[in-house]
């Protein structure tokens, strides 16, 4: 069957024009509309977390702290961490691009459990309201890691409300992951074998495995924490018979794999974009997909590297150190694959590609500095300093947020049916890259020099680097506000997008932009491998 047969005639209503009432949005089970609902929600949280970060950088302009209150500063970085980790980074790509694209890429009409999908959004919104209550009723001062016994005994903040919000949000994450795994197993279009699936789907599959298997552990841990705090009984508090190390083990058993929940979808996005803008097949497809799986598996075995200085045995530290080095291998393989894809390709530097290239550079930097802190001796010096802060921001913000923007620009024409302004897109990609490096590179040096994280004041010697970092943060925030402005503008004034404006492969480009409510007029049949790009100027091989 010809693929062009699945293109919608212009008269067919898209998912956006299929009902205009509030009810048609709030009670929708259409995965594409739920993706939009999520997009609006997480964008709000992204800017709440961003404002908290901006205030932190504002405070750190002078050594004694512009805000002048350690208590306020503690609440700011906790707000920033909690909101960014659980209400932006963990859900970001899966619930927006994932929700929108998984059925389209599979050649399916929806996810396996559409009502569960809508329910997950309501859970997310409910969790969001609870966390906003916790933050605006006075905040939490414990840091996003909720270490005991600080959280259970000494903290005066709204720890239980914040924990409840994270537990509820966690069930939303579990619902999303479950939906993706089952959909990928059960709803692949005829001919869509596992090795014909785009890497984005493989990445989300690996991500979902972590979501469904790690998140419940966090839920149980935070329930125990709340139980201890409410009833003053000993689970984690050593003064009343508990064990704080147990909390750290359980917390990081979730929270380290969660780092890969955040980065794996970004790797998937980049794996879609690089071949499309290099006009070449993805180099080493099977290596890329199995590296995603390998990362997901190994991610469960490295949590102990957060506890090198917490009093664990030296043998456990050695093993966790080696395993942490091992998890870097599949990530590095992927970086080489992306570079191999570009090699001798016909590269176009449109905005999605610029963001994707930014991702590769910043992710590599974040990944390599991760090896510094995986090494036992170096970690003793670097742990709890700004080096660690810079390291994971290179991965989370430089890597993941860049990938999120890359994907958002790449699929924006598909999602909205509108073309975003290209020049603004490229300008924002550059501004974000520059602002990001200026913000976080000085923090590597600060950490190396010994500045500890989470302090509202610092010795005057560190001021120059801190001012540089704060200046970078202001550029970065401009870079993040720009897409908000021009993408919103393009919704109303952007040019209409064709079905496949980038000339990309993948089933999502073979339906109209924006897609129909039922995605495809007739169920597509897949016969070609993924990333079947023809190199520009190459002679078609005779088969």
């Amino acid at each position, binding site marked *: 069957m010809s693929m062009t047969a699945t293109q919608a005639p212009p008269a067919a209503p898209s998912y956006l024009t299929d009902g205009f009432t509030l009810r048609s949005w709030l009670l929708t089970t259409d995965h594409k509309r739920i993706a939009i609902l999520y997009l609006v929600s997480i964008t709000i949280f992204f800017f709440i977390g961003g404002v908290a970060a901006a205030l932190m950088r504002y405070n750190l302009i002078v050594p004694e702290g512009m805000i002048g209150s350690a208590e306020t500063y503690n609440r700011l970085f906790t707000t920033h961490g909690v909101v960014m980790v659980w209400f932006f980074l963990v859900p970001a790509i899966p619930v927006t691009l994932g929700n929108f694209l998984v*059925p389209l890429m599979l050649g*399916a*009409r*929806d*996810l*396996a*459990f*559409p009502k*569960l999908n809508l329910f997950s959004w309501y859970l997310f919104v409910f969790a969001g309201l609870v966390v906003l209550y916790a933050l605006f009723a006075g905040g939490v001062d414990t840091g996003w890691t909720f270490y005991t016994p600080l959280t259970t005994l000494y903290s005066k903040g709204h720890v239980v409300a914040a924990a409840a919000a994270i537990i509820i949000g966690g069930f939303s994450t*579990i619902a999303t992951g*479950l939906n993706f*795994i*089952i959909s990928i*197993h*059960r*709803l692949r279009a005829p001919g869509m074998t596992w090795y014909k699936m785009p890497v984005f789907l493989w990445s989300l599959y690996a991500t979902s495995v972590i979501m*469904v*298997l*790690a*998140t*419940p*552990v966090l*839920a*149980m*841990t935070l*329930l*125990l924490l709340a*139980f*201890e705090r409410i*009833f*003053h*009984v*000993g*689970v984690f508090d050593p003064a*009343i*018979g*508990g*064990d704080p190390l*147990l909390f750290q*083990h*359980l917390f990081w*058993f979730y929270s380290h794999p969660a780092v890969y929940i955040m980065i794996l979808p970004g790797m998937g996005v980049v794996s879609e974009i690089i071949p499309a803008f290099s006009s070449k097949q993805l180099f080493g497809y099977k290596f890329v997909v199995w590296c995603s799986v390998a990362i997901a598996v190994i991610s469960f075995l490295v949590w102990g590297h957060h506890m090198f200085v917490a009093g664990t045995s030296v043998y456990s530290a050695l093993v966790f150190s080696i395993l942490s080095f091992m998890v870097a291998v599949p990530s590095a393989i992927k970086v080489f694959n992306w570079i191999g894809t570009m090699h001798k390709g016909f590269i176009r530097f449109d905005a999605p590609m610029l963001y994707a290239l930014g991702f590769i550079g910043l992710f590599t930097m974040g990944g390599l500095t991760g090896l510094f802190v995986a090494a036992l001796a170096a970690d003793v010096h670097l742990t709890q300093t700004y080096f660690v802060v810079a390291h994971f921001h290179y991965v989370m913000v430089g890597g993941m947020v860049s990938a999120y923007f890359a994907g958002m620009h790449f699929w924006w024409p598909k999602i909205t049916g509108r073309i975003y302004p290209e020049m603004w897109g490229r300008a924002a990609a550059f501004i974000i890259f520059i602002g990001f490096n200026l913000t976080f590179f000085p923090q590597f040096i600060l950490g190396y020099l010994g500045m500890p994280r989470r302090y509202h004041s610092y010795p005057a010697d560190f001021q120059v680097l801190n001012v540089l970092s704060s200046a970078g943060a202001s550029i970065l925030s401009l870079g993040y506000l720009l897409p908000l402005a021009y993408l919103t503008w393009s919704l109303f004034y952007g040019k209409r997008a064709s079905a496949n404006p980038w000339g990309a492969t993948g089933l999502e480009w073979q339906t109209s932009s924006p897609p129909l409510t*039922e995605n495809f007029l007739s169920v597509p049949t897949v016969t070609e491998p993924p990333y079947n790009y023809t190199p520009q100027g190459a002679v078609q091989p005779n088969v």
Partner: protein
Amino acid sequence: MSETSLTYEFQYSSAQHQAETAVSGMWLFLATEVLFFGALFLAWIYARHWNQAGFDMGAQQTSFVIGTANTVILITSSFVYSAGIAFITAGNSRRLIQFCVIAWLLGAAFLVLKFGIEWRDDFARHLFPGASFSIQGPLRSGAESFFVLYFFGTAIHGLHMVIGLALVSWIILRASRHDFSASYFTPPLVVGLYWSFVDMVWLILYPLIYLVGRGP
């Protein structure tokens, strides 16, 4: 309802495709539950490892008779529910309802025994950790840890039981509206998986609470 019961959502190719997918979804959900309770069991074993004598002291205060009776009740309940499913595969809706009602009553009996009698007795004997905890001496801390996990674990398991009872009620209600037949019984099947899983959790809690500390 019977004429609509074989319809399926537009992302599926057949009613059977949808039914099998629902069952696989429940299995995956149960995998998340394994990890959820797994964290509790890990915490339990970890804490016991450091306070073995105290944990055993605590365990010896629990009611072996009620715990064992509850284990028998739950296993029977799962068995009865499974028998109900066997009947609906043969198209016997009436037997499904009867067996679900028995399974529900057994589940409710568990809750009454556990929380109405056993917990009340535990509170009366000051076994809830805190200032008035009844076990004194060097083993107090370990015994308190035991009872922290005892009360927490049984409460979380009890919550799962309550959800299970609500789901079984829903099955009874739908079956009484003749929603299920020999060709459509996905909801009883899916709820049955959950119901049996909650029993499985108890089968780990039971030895942790009542048996391990009573060993020689």
